[in-house]
């Protein structure tokens, strides 16, 4: 049973406690004697803990690892201020009497606030209500010097002042966790050597930690101060030394104080003292506690491999020889493990370490491998190399959703990059322009099984975001299948046999096939579905299976009867066939289908040939003329609108000024040009590779092609025609106040024809806005996501179906109010029609 932490109390260490927890009083500033042994009473006193292996601690008897180290203390010759507490000290000075130490404000005045010490901003009272003493003016000179009526107020005086404050008055000021005089340091705790270990360089020289350097400085100055006080040196010398001691103690706590020169190493590097160890990205919290480095992981560049399964990841042999899986020796596997050990650490499928029953690790080398193979017995463990079929966790940052970390099966490769199937680029948001990914090896059978069951790629085909397939075919997969399943595609018997062989299907092909027949080999024999393809142009009345363009897909008993296969059938976020197979036959079958269909597409495409070029955006002169006519006509329309505006006859839109109405009318007119141009291009362009990609949804759109071949259209910033730039005009080449389309970002040229300088500039404005929007949006949504994850990370659906946090407090009685897991349902709901059809037969 675990224990619950009820509360954590923060407070100050009193000198008494500091002395009590210390084992040594530090009195000397030299570290080692002539023989190299640490000096007793020095900052490296052996009683402060052990860092050298083999030695035993004189205080607790522990060795390295068991002795956590022990504190010492240093008695300062004169007290100094703790820099991290100057604000508190200042506030206490301002709210208490300099003579009697009582709080100056009345209890009524203090009651106004929950935390009077921090909320009181009233000017200091000039007279004490308790003893009547006159109060002088206290000033804080950053970072740690106090003055009273412009004369220095020493830490010694402050300490005596604070000692006079009665405990009852501390309560009034809401001071908890200790006496205020403890804010002034008289005894400095010396941390154990275990937090500041020295390192021995190859040359045999010792190099001390930054903290040790700083502590030596403090002890040395303290000693000089003490000596000067005892010989009765003049005040100004003592004051100088005292000030120096204050500086060293302050920089020991924080070496980044404003207005204080940084304490530096001999080399000129600033010392890394206590505050620097904790603060910031490289500090203890963010670097070592919130996130840590792990073993059994690796990172390298990724590259594509269309021939491996989406469940697999290609791992270089050099990586597999470093990453290991521990295997417990038992009766059944002992001879196998012996054979692996005999292969040694350098062969692939070998082993690196054995772990003896007492937990000691022994490295396997070429020299001792046969010896170790004889030694192992039941109770030993062997850390063998990663091999084909092992389960690993694969990850790409930023890890924004659960599909950013999925389990894969290892497939060893002789190269130097991780390889992955192209279909899993989407969930990782990966491409191959130099992206790197991380790989982790689960070390226990439990972890391996859990990764396999819950994290395997095939279990994440359906996204929890929208309940559809996130993993699907992309680019060439879709182009290939589109061309393959077109009506006129025929495959020779020999080619069909070869393709089927390549994608791993055994079948007897006895004749030439149509593309649709070949595709049908991938479908389960009882699959039935109908849907409109992505290429469907949305005729007013759909002829369904008689669609003249063959854009209506019909699958009957696993036979593709009608329609072309495109992104609507197998693509990601749409993929209706993938979707149905996943639902009906399970994720394993869906994975198999995806593996095969993507290979089929690529295989066919490489036989067929596929390329794009400038000639793909060529349109007949007739079409160009039509577009030009459309542009001219809309420009004429705009001219009429502008004339009407000048006459004051614009049709005003409710809620808009006359000028705004004009802009709206013009924008509407000019937008129509692009639609018209798009229609003209679509009618006149012949079906080439670029069009195939646009129609099938593999890459690009009809709009992209229109802008390349026909007309770019109106450019906008913030949803309006371009209006910014110079006074009353966008560029100095136009007349002031000109309203014509040309002067406000209308681009009638196409990218193929080329842009004139004005058009180019307007297009660049439009493009720049898009870039800015994108980067701003990702930054904003990234932070929103982070906050959401931090708020919800401990919530969990329990086995009884309630959502609870880590204390077991119920957050929801039914998850999402409907108990539907979108990653296990169709598009976030239940398709009742399909269930009825499956159970009762079609037409029920």
């Amino acid at each position, binding site marked *: 049973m675990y224990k619950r932490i009820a509360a954590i109390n923060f407070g100050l260490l009193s000198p008494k406690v500091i002395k009590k927890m210390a084992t040594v009083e530090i009195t000397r500033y030299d570290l080692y004697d002539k023989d190299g042994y640490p000096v007793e009473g020095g900052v490296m006193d052996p009683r402060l803990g052990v860092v050298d292996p083999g030695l035993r601690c004189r205080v607790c008897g522990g060795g390295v690892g068991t002795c956590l180290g022990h504190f010492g203390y240093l008695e300062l010759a004169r007290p100094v201020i703790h820099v991290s507490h100057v604000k508190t000290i200042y506030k206490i000075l301002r709210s208490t009497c300099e003579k009697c130490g009582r709080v100056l404000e009345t209890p009524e005045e203090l009651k106004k606030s929950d935390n009077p010490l921090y909320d009181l901003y009233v000017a200091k009272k000039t007279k004490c209500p308790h003893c009547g003493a006159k109060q002088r003016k206290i000033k804080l000179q950053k970072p740690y010097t106090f003055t009273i009526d412009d004369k220095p107020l020493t830490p010694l005086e402050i300490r005596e002042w604070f000692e006079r404050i009665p405990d009852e008055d501390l309560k009034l000021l809401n001071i908890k966790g200790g006496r205020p005089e403890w804010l002034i340091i008289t005894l400095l705790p010396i941390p154990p050597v275990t937090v500041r270990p020295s390192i021995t360089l190859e040359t045999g020289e010792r190099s001390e930690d930054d903290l040790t350097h700083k502590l030596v400085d403090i002890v040395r100055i303290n000693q000089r101060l003490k000596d000067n006080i005892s010989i009765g040196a003049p005040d100004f010398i003592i004051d100088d030394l005292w000030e120096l001691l204050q500086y060293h103690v302050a920089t020991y706590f924080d070496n980044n104080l404003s207005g204080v020169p940084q304490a530096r190493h001999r080399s000129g590097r600033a010392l890394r003292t206590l505050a620097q160890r904790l603060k910031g990205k490289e500090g203890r919290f963010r670097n070592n506690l919130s996130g840590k480095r792990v073993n059994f992981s690796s990172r390298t560049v990724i590259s594509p491999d269309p021939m491996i399964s989406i469940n697999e990841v290609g791992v270089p042999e050099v990586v597999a020889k470093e990453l290991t899986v521990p295997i417990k020796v038992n009766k059944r596997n002992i001879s196998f493990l012996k054979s692996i050990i005999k292969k040694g650490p350098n062969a692939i499928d070998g082993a690196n370490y054995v772990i003896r029953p007492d937990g000691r690790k022994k490295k396997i080398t070429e020299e001792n491998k046969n010896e170790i193979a004889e030694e192992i017995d039941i109770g030993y463990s062997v850390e063998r190399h990663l091999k084909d079929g092992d389960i690993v966790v694969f990850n790409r940052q930023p890890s924004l959703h659960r599909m950013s970390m999925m389990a894969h099966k290892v497939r060893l490769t002789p190269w130097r990059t991780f390889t992955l199937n192209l279909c899993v680029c989407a969930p990782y948001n990966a491409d191959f322009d130099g992206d790197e990914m991380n790989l982790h090896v689960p070390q226990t059978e439990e972890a391996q099984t859990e990764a396999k069951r819950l994290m395997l790629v095939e279990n994440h085909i359906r996204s929890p975001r929208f309940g559809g397939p996130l993993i699907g075919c992309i680019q060439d997969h879709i182009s290939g299948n589109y061309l393959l399943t077109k009506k006129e595609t025929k495959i020779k018997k020999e080619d069909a046999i070869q393709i089927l062989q390549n994608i791993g299907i055994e079948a007897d092909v006895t004749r030439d096939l149509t593309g649709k027949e070949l595709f049908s080999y991938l479908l389960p024999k009882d699959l039935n579905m109908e849907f409109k393809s992505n290429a469907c142009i949305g005729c007013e009345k759909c002829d369904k299976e008689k669609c003249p363009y063959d854009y209506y897909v019909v699958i009957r008993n696993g036979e593709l009867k009608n329609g072309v296969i495109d992104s609507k059938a197998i693509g990601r976020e749409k993929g209706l066939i993938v979707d149905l197979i996943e639902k009906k036959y399970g994720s394993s079958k869906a994975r198999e289908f995806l593996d095969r269909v993507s290979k089929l597409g690529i295989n066919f495409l490489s036989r067929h040939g596929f390329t794009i070029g400038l000639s793909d955006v060529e349109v007949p002169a007739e079409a160009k003329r039509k577009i030009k006519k459309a542009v001219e006509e809309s420009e004429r329309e705009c001219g009429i609108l502008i004339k009407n505006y000048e006459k004051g006859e614009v049709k005003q839109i409710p809620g808009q000024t006359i000028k705004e109405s004009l802009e709206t009318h013009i924008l509407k007119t000019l937008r129509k040009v692009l639609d018209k141009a798009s229609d003209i291009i679509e009618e006149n362009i012949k079906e080439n590779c670029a069009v195939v990609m646009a129609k099938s949804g593999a890459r690009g759109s009809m709009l992209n092609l229109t802008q390349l071949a026909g007309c770019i259209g109106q450019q906008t910033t913030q949803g309006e025609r371009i209006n910014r730039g110079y006074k009353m005009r966008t560029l100095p080449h136009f007349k002031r106040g000109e309203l014509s389309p040309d002067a406000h970002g209308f681009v009638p040229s196409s990218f193929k024809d080329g842009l004139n300088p004005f058009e180019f500039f307007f297009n660049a404005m439009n493009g720049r806005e898009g870039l800015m929007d994108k980067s701003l949006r990702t930054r904003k949504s990234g932070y929103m996501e982070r906050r959401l994850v931090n708020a919800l990370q401990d919530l969990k659906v329990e086995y009884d179906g309630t959502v609870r946090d880590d204390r077991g*407090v119920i957050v929801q*009685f039914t998850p999402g109010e*409907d108990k539907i897991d979108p990653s296990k349902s169709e598009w976030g709901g239940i398709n009742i029609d399909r269930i009825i059809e499956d159970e009762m037969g079609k037409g029920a």
Partner: protein
Amino acid sequence: MKEFKVTDHILVPKHEVLSKEEKIELLKKLNISEKQLPKIFDSDPVVKEIGAKIGNVIKITRNSPVAGKSIYYRIVIKSE
């Protein structure tokens, strides 16, 4: 003038106080202590209106866009 009641408002879902037996049954069904139930202040206008006391469990029947009706329970605690 007619007094205004928050429970009459269209956006305020149905709140009912559970009987002692119902409360015990609920806690037993979920295998939880009172501390693990979602909370509601006794100063909440609806709580005041239906007269629920500290320690009472309120059953809320909400209209849910995804589930039609959904049931939620909250225990009345003292407001700060």
